[in-house]
């Protein structure tokens, strides 16, 4: 205390410069969240897990690209790649969501935010946008690596590259769906607790516990039940939507004629989680 007690006597300067509006504030909170997701501006410890996951996912992509270049075989297409990485995505979400949300709650920073011209909707919006970008990048960058690998080893010049791009773009959209769904669920769970470990555990638990439900449903005798089984878990839900929208993705999930049901559930789930998240912060903001 005492060593900090020296108050330097220099005059106070009033600030006459511009004050930016809500858009700029939203943007700076978004960038801050995106940086925090990958541990920038944090200690080295905070960088380990996000970059470990990112490294593994990228490594897999590099290997896939190399295998394809050498042998011409395609072990996983772009969409199958995203599905195959699902557990790593969950791991990533379980680390990043508490980092973005629980941390503020734990440290009690929220009153400092909400005593500024920042609405609950801005806060939630910026955090969701930051995390969607972070999760999307986790899939999209490796997918792009795979694309580059394919493009540089293309045998028939530009036409192959265009065809490859035609595969990549829907896959990027598919990754966005992954990001949206997993972000909204992850942030909602993380916003309920200030304890990072609880939040991470809760997120993993939700995804972990829904998987066996799909397994049980998919061995029922009714074909309808088998085809609807994927609805029970967020992971198979995303796969189902992908299977319906990109039929040659071969996700290995049989959805029959229920494709629209998958899409509707995915959208409802995302919207519902985001609304709950907003409601949660409306309440927290007034505390």
């Amino acid at each position: 205390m005492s060593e900090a007690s020296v108050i330097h006597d220099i005059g106070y300067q009033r600030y006459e410069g511009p004050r930016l509006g809500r858009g700029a504030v939203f943007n700076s909170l978004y960038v801050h969240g995106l940086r925090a997701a990958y541990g920038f501006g944090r200690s080295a410890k905070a960088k380990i897990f996000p970059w470990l996951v990112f490294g593994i996912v990228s490594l897999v992509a590099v290997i896939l690209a190399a295998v394809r270049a050498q042998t011409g075989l395609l072990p996983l297409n772009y969409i199958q790649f995203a599905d195959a990485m699902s557990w790593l995505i969950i791991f990533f979400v379980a680390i990043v969501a508490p980092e973005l949300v629980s941390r503020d709650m734990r440290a009690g920073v929220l009153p400092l935010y909400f005593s500024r011209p920042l609405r609950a909707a801005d806060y939630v919006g910026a955090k969701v946008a930051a995390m969607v970008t972070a999760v999307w990048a986790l899939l999209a960058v490796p997918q792009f690596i795979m694309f580059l690998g394919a493009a540089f080893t293309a045998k028939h010049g530009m036409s192959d590259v265009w065809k490859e791009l035609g595969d990549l773009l829907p896959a990027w959209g598919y990754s966005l769906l992954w990001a949206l769904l997993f972000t909204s669920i992850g942030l909602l769970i993380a916003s309920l607790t200030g304890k990072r470990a609880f939040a991470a555990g809760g997120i993993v638990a939700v995804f972990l516990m829904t998987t066996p439900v799909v397994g049980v449903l998919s061995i029922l005798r009714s074909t309808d039940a088998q085809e609807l089984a994927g609805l029970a878990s967020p992971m198979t839900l995303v796969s189902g939507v992908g299977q319906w929208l990109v039929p040659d993705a071969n996700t290995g999930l049989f959805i029959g004629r229920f494709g629209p049901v998958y899409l509707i559930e995915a959208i409802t789930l995302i919207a519902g989680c985001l609304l709950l998240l907003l409601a949660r912060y409306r309440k927290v903001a007034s505390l």
Partner: protein
Amino acid sequence: MTQGLTKTYGGRVTALDNLTVDVEPGIVGLVGANGAGKSTFIKIMLGLIAPTSGTVRVFDLDPTVQPDQVRNRVGYMPEHDALPPDVSAAEFVTHLGRISGLPRTAARERASEALRHVGLYEERYRQIGGYSTGMKQRVKLAQALVHDPDLLLLDEPTNGLDPAGRDAMLALVHRIGTEFGISVVTCSHLLGEVEQICDSLVAIEGGKLLRADRISNMTEVSDVLAVEVSEGTQELADALEKLDLPVRVDGRVLLVPLEREDTYDRILRAVADLDLPLHRLDQRRHRVAELFAPREKADV
């Protein structure tokens, strides 16, 4: 600044009860026991919660209607811990400056400056987790200053500080109010603290206004002389009474109102005449606490 303010929680708990108070610019002390409604009052001024009835005006703005404009001009220092441990103070205050709408470079400059004003310039790149309570309080004050507000709302700024830290914090608040040209509302449950630095006082109890006035009005006619002698207190009291001085015995101390210019001399002479060992003779300003509790000190 506020009028007829009532805030009830859940229809049962009344935090503020028909509070009407008008505060002038300057340093205002908001005093009341724990649970008197100080924090509720501040939150309503920030537009964080809406009053159940009544209106609030902050700089002629209604925080329930224009919260952004109000919050742009107000800095808030909360009572509780509000700092993440794993970032440096400079980084954190810069970030909050940007959330207040400052451009990137301006936020960085003003964060350094705010931290320098609170006396944390050297330590600003250290992580907040390693700070002492006093330093954390200073960071909280710096983040309230970073966007150059016209009004600071400080909720228990001396909470958890040792006496030296307390004095330093109070001096800092006083400096902000007088030299920086920023109005301050500082709330505390310790009257003795705020009366040292405030221009005016607002006392609330159970959500009701107890008294609001300028400190100078409250202490104007209340100077007393405290006389303490090592022995013969009663003799001296009798002697002073014979001199038509209204003496009041307060333990071992005699309190004499300083009504006339020669009161001082007359007391000294009385002590000398009785040949008593004078221990102490000093002028004591009435503590504002006594004004807030007129029932107990009605005889003054």
